[in-house]
């Protein structure tokens, strides 16, 4: 399984900052189209790859040229998994807002914001860490080799 080439670790950090701001605006305004757009952003990062993820593109075009290049690289797999976790929360949130169950929209958005904020402020990837927890509550299906 290839998750794509390793990336400049400052890219995901930048993406986390943008995500934090977007989700904060969603919470304050309750404007669901913005959350829907963020859901699509998560989906692209998770399922199409980081190279195509809008915030990564933004980072490469706008931010990276102004920074010193770094040889540091970060694996793409954890990042994509975290984007997938974000996607689930954003999707649930959008459904909540659209269907009028605003409480659901707020709670789901708050969870996604919580994770994005931890990533932006502390460089702590909650989505990545959740992998074992998620697996713990799923039945022991295929146990490779």
């Amino acid at each position: 399984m290839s998750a794509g080439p390793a990336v400049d670790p400052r890219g995901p950090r930048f993406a986390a900052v943008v995500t934090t701001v977007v989700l904060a605006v969603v919470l304050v305004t309750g404007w669901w189209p913005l959350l829907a757009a963020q859901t699509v952003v998560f989906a692209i990062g998770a399922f199409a790859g980081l190279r195509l993820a809008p915030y990564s593109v933004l980072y490469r075009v706008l931010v990276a040229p102004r920074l010193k290049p770094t040889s540091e690289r970060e694996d793409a797999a954890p990042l994509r998994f975290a984007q997938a976790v974000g996607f689930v929360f954003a999707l649930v949130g959008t459904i909540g807002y659209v269907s009028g169950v605003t409480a659901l929209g707020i709670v789901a958005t708050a969870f996604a914001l919580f994770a994005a904020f931890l990533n932006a402020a502390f460089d702590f990837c909650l989505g990545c860490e959740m992998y074992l927890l998620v697996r713990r509550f799923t039945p022991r299906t295929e146990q490779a080799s």
Partner: protein
Amino acid sequence: MTGSTGLWVLAGTLVAGLVVGVLLHLRNGRIRTTDDSAPAGLPEPVAAALAPAPAVTLVQISTTFCAPCRHTRAILSHLAERTEGLAHVDLDVTDRPHVAQDLGVLRTPTTLALTSSGRELLRVSGVPKAQELLSALEPHLVPRVERGSHSQGG
């Protein structure tokens, strides 16, 4: 009305994030010594990874989806390389989460220091600090060659 609710939730979420972030930061790399209680049977992949006596093995539990695991691997393999009687194994449990479950490991990376007989000396969650880890392990490592200048012969 939605606006003000959202504003409160936003404030609450950010405060919660700050608190959790600081706690995680403080907890990161903290060493917990474990009781001497007899091992309750290690999962097979772990038992198989132990170095022969009298070495201590650092068993690092990782997953593919873990960014700090790579960092941890670099620190620990370097530490094992320059420390006599210390081995390091990185165990990827992505496809066998039951291994982590049997060890009571909830987050990755978690590193367990195990004797050759499988007795757990200590465990560290998060990215370990090499020097702290080394001093915690010191009493369990085979007595090293005389201190002082690099001993020749002997």
